[in-house]
């Protein structure tokens, strides 16, 4: 562990004041209101403090005043780039707590929408990562092209693009309209092509490789010890994915692979996300093939009253393991509502990664961890 920021003497003479750079809370590459206080020695970071909490909205406390269904919109606003998986996490947690079943069709719709959300979120993550590496937003906007189409699909189905509030306890809120299916098919047809296009633009690019390879290396041991999850963990070579480890929503019925990196550098995390997009397309194709007819939602009581008790339920969000710890005291509102934020826990390793790295490397590393401040601060 490095010493505290203001004890660092850069020159060794004891006369210089530390060169402290406040990156954030308003800064182009902190992906929200995140603040890094770094002590620099020329271009090299000697010490690094992460300061979070600028987007704290007291969600967990507010949730104690609301019923379980009323809490679903909070999960939209927690991880606002992956609202669907947030919704699904809470809905599943409550379903597991109360024993409410959701119909088969709803399970398939949940899979389709959370995989679409994963593609959209990975597009955002990889796009901003390349923007952090200095490509003047071109890859970001290319990836936004697909993300836009996915958000259009969301808008068709539930009327919202980001804060979808789509998953319900016991099903999903709406049946997708008739236009949804051909539009989804079109998207699925062009996505693999487009992914290859980005690969051509970036993966064969010498500068991008020079900026991302062997930068911000997380070893498998460190990744496990810091309880990283999601692409950050898989980039380090650990094959762990809750969709396979603890299948939910019938993921065990789908055929897909887990991409894992070799080195654990920024490039590997980038490539793991790229590959996961392809795998998600594969999953959605199977889900569209197999989706059964039927109702999309079971009727549940307006105010669910789970038995007193507690549950920790987790699913694989685009950023990793998003977990909900709910304690019920038998009333319609949770006694305790805790969100295990994958972004916050993945971020915890940044200090070790940043110290001794240069400023551009630290920025790219931060981009590769893919944080969402709404989820970190809640």
């Amino acid at each position, binding site marked *: 562990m490095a010493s505290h920021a203001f004890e660092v003497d850069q020159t060794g003479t004891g006369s210089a004041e530390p060169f402290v750079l406040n990156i954030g809370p308003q800064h182009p590459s902190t992906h929200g209101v995140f603040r890094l206080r770094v002590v620099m020695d020329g271009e090299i970071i000697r010490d690094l403090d992460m300061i979070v909490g600028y987007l704290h909205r007291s969600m967990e406390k507010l949730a104690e005043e609301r019923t379980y269904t009323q809490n679903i919109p909070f999960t939209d606003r927690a991880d606002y780039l992956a609202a669907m998986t947030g919704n699904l996490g809470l809905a599943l947690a409550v379903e597991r707590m109360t024993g409410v079943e959701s119909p088969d069709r709803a399970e398939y719709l949940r899979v389709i929408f959370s995989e679409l959300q994963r593609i959209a979120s990975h597009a955002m993550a990889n796009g901003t990562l390349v923007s952090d590496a*200095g490509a003047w937003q071109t890859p970001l906007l290319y990836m936004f092209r697909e993300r836009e189409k996915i958000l259009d699909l969301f808008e068709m189905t539930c009327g919202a693009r980001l804060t979808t509030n789509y998953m319900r306890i016991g099903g999903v809120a709406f049946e997708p309209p008739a236009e949804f299916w051909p539009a989804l098919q079109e998207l699925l047809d062009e996505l693999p092509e487009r992914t290859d296009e980005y690969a051509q633009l970036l993966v064969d690019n010498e500068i991008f490789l020079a900026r991302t390879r062997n930068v911000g290396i997380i070893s498998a041991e460190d990744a496990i010890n810091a309880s990283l999850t999601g692409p950050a963990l898989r980039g380090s070579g650990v094959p762990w994915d809750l969709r396979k480890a603890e299948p939910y929503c019938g993921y065990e019925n789908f055929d897909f692979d887990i991409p894992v990196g070799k080195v654990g550098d920024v490039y590997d995390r980038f490539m793991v996300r790229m590959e996961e997009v392809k795998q998600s397309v594969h999953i959605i194709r199977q889900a569209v093939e197999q989706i059964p007819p039927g109702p999309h939602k079971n009727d549940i009581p307006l105010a669910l009253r789970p038995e007193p008790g507690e549950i920790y339920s987790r699913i694989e969000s685009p950023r990793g393991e998003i977990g909900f710890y709910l304690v019920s005291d038998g009333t319609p509102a949770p006694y305790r509502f805790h969100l295990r934020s994958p972004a916050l826990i993945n971020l915890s390793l940044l200090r070790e990664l940043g110290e001794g790295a240069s400023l551009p490397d630290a920025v790219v590393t931060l981009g590769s961890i893919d944080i969402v401040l709404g989820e970190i601060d809640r």
Partner: protein
Amino acid sequence: MSEQPLQAPIRRPATPMLRQIEDRPGLKEMALGVPFGLKVIGAIMGLGALVLMAAVGYLVVDGRLDGQWYDVRDLGHAVAGLRDWLDGEGVDHRLTWLITGALGGLAIMSIVGGWLLIGSWVERRVIAKFQIRMGPNRTGLFGLLQPIADAVKLMTKEIIIPRGADRFLYYIPPVLVFVPAMLGWAPIPWAPNMAYMDINVGVLYVVAISSIGVLAIFLAGWSSNNHYSLLGAMRTVAMMISYEIPISLALLSVVLLTQSMQLSEIVAFQGHYHVWMIAIIPFAAFAFLFASTAEINRSPNDIGEAESEIVAGFYTEYSGMKAGLFMAVELAHAILVGALMATFFLGGYTLFGLEEWVPGYLILAAKIGAVYFLFVWLRGTLPRFRLDQLMGFAWKFLIPLGIIQAFIVAIEASVFVRVDAPAFITLGAFAVVNLASTVVMVRFWADRLGYAPAQHATKPELTNALGGLKAAQRLRS
């Protein structure tokens, strides 16, 4: 398969945004919708331009245009005519000198100023096309008035001086940074007789002028009392000083081969032998272009104002029109480098004999535009280098190879002077030798530096097995 109607036709795009995009009139509809009067005026203007071009063509063929003051191919004749007329009227020759000098300066300033007016529009539109966007399209036709709107906005904004800033030094840089961007234009020949200051040490002058910009940037970074500014200034100064050397070495090759430091002579050499320097010494051209992007802080070497790292670099603390001036000078620098690149390596105002027919300044402008387009293209495509990578590229790669290249060119130049062979044979041989030597040098040197292009683009491994650390170790081995 479900009972869902999978093949349902989409009658209308499903979302408001898509509907809005679909309802937008296309270019053809907009052109057809122009009022009849405007169409007539356009037709008349087009016909008039054709007639004018025919008349000029007749005069050119007739040989009556050469050296006349109304020779539109070379505005230098017009200035010379004015000077002769003023001298004939008995005006003091110092006043004559002043008037013609002021005219030339005004011309350069209008070129730069005119480019500032449309340059940002061009850049934004072109880069928008690269990025599948529309770019500015709300202010005026095709958003052409956008730069003016931007300028008005910037001018009306408050200029904030940070607490602790050195007020005097803080005020100078936005103005000072424009000085080299203007002065650099002086020796560039736009046509055989059309250079503002055709000095015989033009190359030296260009190199000297380009280093002044460092001063302004360092002042800006230092006086702002901001760590981002200081870091940006430090980076930029390091960069500019490093990349002066590859630029000088690249220009040294040109000077050795053309036997002249005068820019008009360099262009005349290329025009005389109908060859561009980029074909004879490709390494120097590449080194000059790359080093220039570092020198003027453009992508992929824009580390001095790397947005994702140090916000706006040395001008982070500047607001309003002061920041606007820093942004504007970037455009001015870009076209200045375009002009230098065109003059040194792309044949300047010549285009294989076409300069007899078409005004040379239009040819040069087209070449500047091409280089500028290349800059925008690079900016729209490439990520940014890291500082150490960029410095390493200059010191470990461009400078040693530049020295070797200059050495080879020096031998070639002495051969060129001494051997009495047709120029196309000697120059062709030089081109082949230089290209081959460049390839060999680059491959050899890259090997020496331990750079192996083949190690790239690994894909993640796909697995179906789950596990923790042991599984990771198993996968890795």
